[in-house]
């Protein structure tokens, strides 16, 4: 990399099932205001020395907002006036990725990124149904949940993964969430509770899934090495980024694999110089809306071999006490809305490295992985490597 890019501030709202008292923009403004206050930064055109935010980015999709030009409604809350702006149609992790690219390009120095979704004001199933091709798949009523059930079945039957192994992810995440003041649904549950919970789309039960509705927002500020050192004494460096898209048609993919994650990971690791992730990464924040995904993504992220996601979980490596804790925050399973989810992973990973994670802190964490995905069954993945 020709420049180094740092995260200098992160913030998020508490995630809740219904923030009906607040309008979208007002939800977003809470973390935006926090990152501005943390850094003392203002907008470049208001400063004399040009030392300010010169770019704003959001992630949002029209269907989730129910109106076209969705970013209209949020850009003002990021201080859009006179700003260079863009909106990423995808998961928030991709917005952070784009912010890094913007700074590496030399065109911008300081980028403010925010993402907000109110699932309580949308029908995810209806929006997600529009993801599938309009002629063959949409009429089946497919959404992410039902498509993911197909993927879970294929993955579990091919590699002999059991529902119990998947359920352990929910048990661990919901318990971790008890230490996270921002989490929506921390729970004390057992594997049996997960197995007995209401079946949503076999083999995914209610506790195998994220809470059906979450509202929330998060924000962060990226800047160059030179400026980061002036703004904070705890800059978090983004040393590796990678993303990749897979085929769209589910039938064109072997859903038991995650080729695009393997490729995105390879790109991020090679940029960050990582060869042995379990040794070189101290904590991982992984996007998973359903439990089986963590097992499958663990394989894609190179934490274990193909088909070994279940055993990897059983070994306890990803527990808080393990060698590489996954989702100390409780992850998406404890409640993060679509779009915000992947960026919340970056925010959590940075919080860990800043040593500000409170009860969920992984002691001595020096490097972290954050992961987000867009599309059913993880069609596109984005991986970021953060270091202290």
């Amino acid at each position, binding site marked *: *990399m*020709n420049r180094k890019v740092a995260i200098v501030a992160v913030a998020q709202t508490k995630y809740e099932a219904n923030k009906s008292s607040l309008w979208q923009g007002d939800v977003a403004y809470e973390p935006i205001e926090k990152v501005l206050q943390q850094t003392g930064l203002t907008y470049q055109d208001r400063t004399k020395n040009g030392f300010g935010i010169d770019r*704003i980015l959001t992630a949002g*999709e*029209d*269907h989730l907002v*129910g*109106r*076209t*030009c*969705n*970013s*209209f*409604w949020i*850009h*003002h809350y990021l*201080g*859009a*006036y*006179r*700003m*260079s*702006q*863009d*909106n*990423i*149609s*995808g998961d928030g992790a*991709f917005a952070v*990725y*784009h912010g890094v*690219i*913007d700074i*590496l*390009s*030399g*065109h911008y120095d300081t980028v403010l990124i925010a993402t907000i979704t109110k699932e309580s004001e949308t029908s995810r199933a209806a*929006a*997600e*149904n*529009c*993801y599938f*091709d*309009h002629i063959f798949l949409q009429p089946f009523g497919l959404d992410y949940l039902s498509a993911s059930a197909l993927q879970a079945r294929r993955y579990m039957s091919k590699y002999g993964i059991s529902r119990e192994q998947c359920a352990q992810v929910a048990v661990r995440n919901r318990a971790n969430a008890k230490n996270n003041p921002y989490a929506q649904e921390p729970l004390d549950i057992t594997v049996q509770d997960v197995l007995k919970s209401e079946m949503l789309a076999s083999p995914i039960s209610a506790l195998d899934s994220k809470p059906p509705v979450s509202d929330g927002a998060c924000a962060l500020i990226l800047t160059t090495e030179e400026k980061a050192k002036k703004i904070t004494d705890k800059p978090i460096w983004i040393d590796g980024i990678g*993303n*990749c*898209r*897979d*085929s*769209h*048609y589910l039938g064109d993919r072997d859903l038991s694999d995650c*080729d*695009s994650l393997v*490729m995105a990971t390879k*790109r991020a690791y090679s*940029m960050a110089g990582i060869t042995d992730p379990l040794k070189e990464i101290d904590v991982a924040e992984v996007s998973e809306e359903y439990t089986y995904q963590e097992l499958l993504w663990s394989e894609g992220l190179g934490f274990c071999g193909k088909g070994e996601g279940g055993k990897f979980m059983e070994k306890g490596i990803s527990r808080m006490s393990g060698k590489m804790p996954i989702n100390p925050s409780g992850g998406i399973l404890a409640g993060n809305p679509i779009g915000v989810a992947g960026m919340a992973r970056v925010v959590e990973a940075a919080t860990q490295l800043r040593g500000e994670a409170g009860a969920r802190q992984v002691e001595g964490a020096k490097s972290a992985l954050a992961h987000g995905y*867009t*599309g059913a069954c993880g*069609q*596109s993945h984005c991986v970021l490597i953060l270091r202290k």
Partner: protein
Amino acid sequence: MAEKVAVIGVGQTPGKRSRKDVSEVELVNEAVRAALEDAELTINDIDVVIQGNMEFFEGTFYTDQWLVEGLGAYGKSGLKVNAAGDTGGTIFASGVSHAASGLFKTVLVVGFEKQDEGAYGGIGMRSEDSFFDIAGGSGRAIGAMWGTAVSVIDRKSATEELAAKVRVKEAKCGSRNPYSHLKLQLTEQDVLNSDIVIWPLRFLHICPTSVSSCAVIVAPEKEAKRLCRKPVWVKDYYCIHSGLQPRVGEPWLNLGAAYPTGPQFRWGVEQAAIALYKRNGIVNPRKQLDLIESYSPSTWHEIDYYEALKLCEPGEAWKLIEEEATWPDGDIPYDVSGGVVSTNAIGATGLHRVAETVIQIRGEGGERQVPKDVNLGLTFAQGADQFCTAAILCKTL
């Protein structure tokens, strides 16, 4: 920028009102293949694919995921951006950022809109405030166009007759462009007689609803020189937001009449031009620029932008029109492609501007090629009168 970036290939599909013969995937694939052929590359040479459009227009959730096969994006890096009408501008800016980042060798940028699979009227209105504006039946783009039209008249920048003259020029240019949707043979009388939508905005002043796709390949300097015999360089780009919120409390949009003389409508375009001129030593744009490809969604916008882009003094757009300075053989040819009033496939529109400028700089415009050497071209896209992304392209660095 960390690295200099060049456009090394462009591809467009012919604009149409409807393309029942292709799906969205097939439509973007036509543009992608054309751009690859133009660049003499194959899809295997591409590292990143950036896509953009207005997802609500076709009702496709995460469009870039759905289009992967058509885009040739399988296994490649990339993402999707959406910034209203400015999408064509911001995807280009995103492509340039990717190319300049030092991480990639080639970036394919693709915009499209297939408006025969959606209904703009209803969808456009969905960008309005749910409580006040939709209930009030505000017309979104039409309302905004009318505000511009009435402000041009009010400032005495041009008359209806002069607007008709500009429209005839646009129609002639459009009919010379093989990729243009409308190829109208118009007289000034036809324009003056066309239906009034809201006076002085007439039916023929307004851009059409088009189906089209555009693809552009960009690369950093080293790769551009290695791969391409005729690179066109991105001298600079600038992206700006007016900060205005589309709510009833902002009279600039919904109650345009409240500010008929104000600069609100063109603010972003004007500011982007000022910034680019300043950064690139342009003091007399009419002389120093060789041509302009603009996002002028109505004839009145074009006239308004003559002044916003400092091609003339404020209130003197009429002089440019009388002198025919913005005609293809004038001092500062403006929209020789026929412009947005000839083709408007929203997610592609801003990128068509880039592609057409590249074609003119290379001197490959055929029937629409301007009769002079083109070294420096200004292009811009604007969205919802809020966002603007402008770029200066040049023949030599």
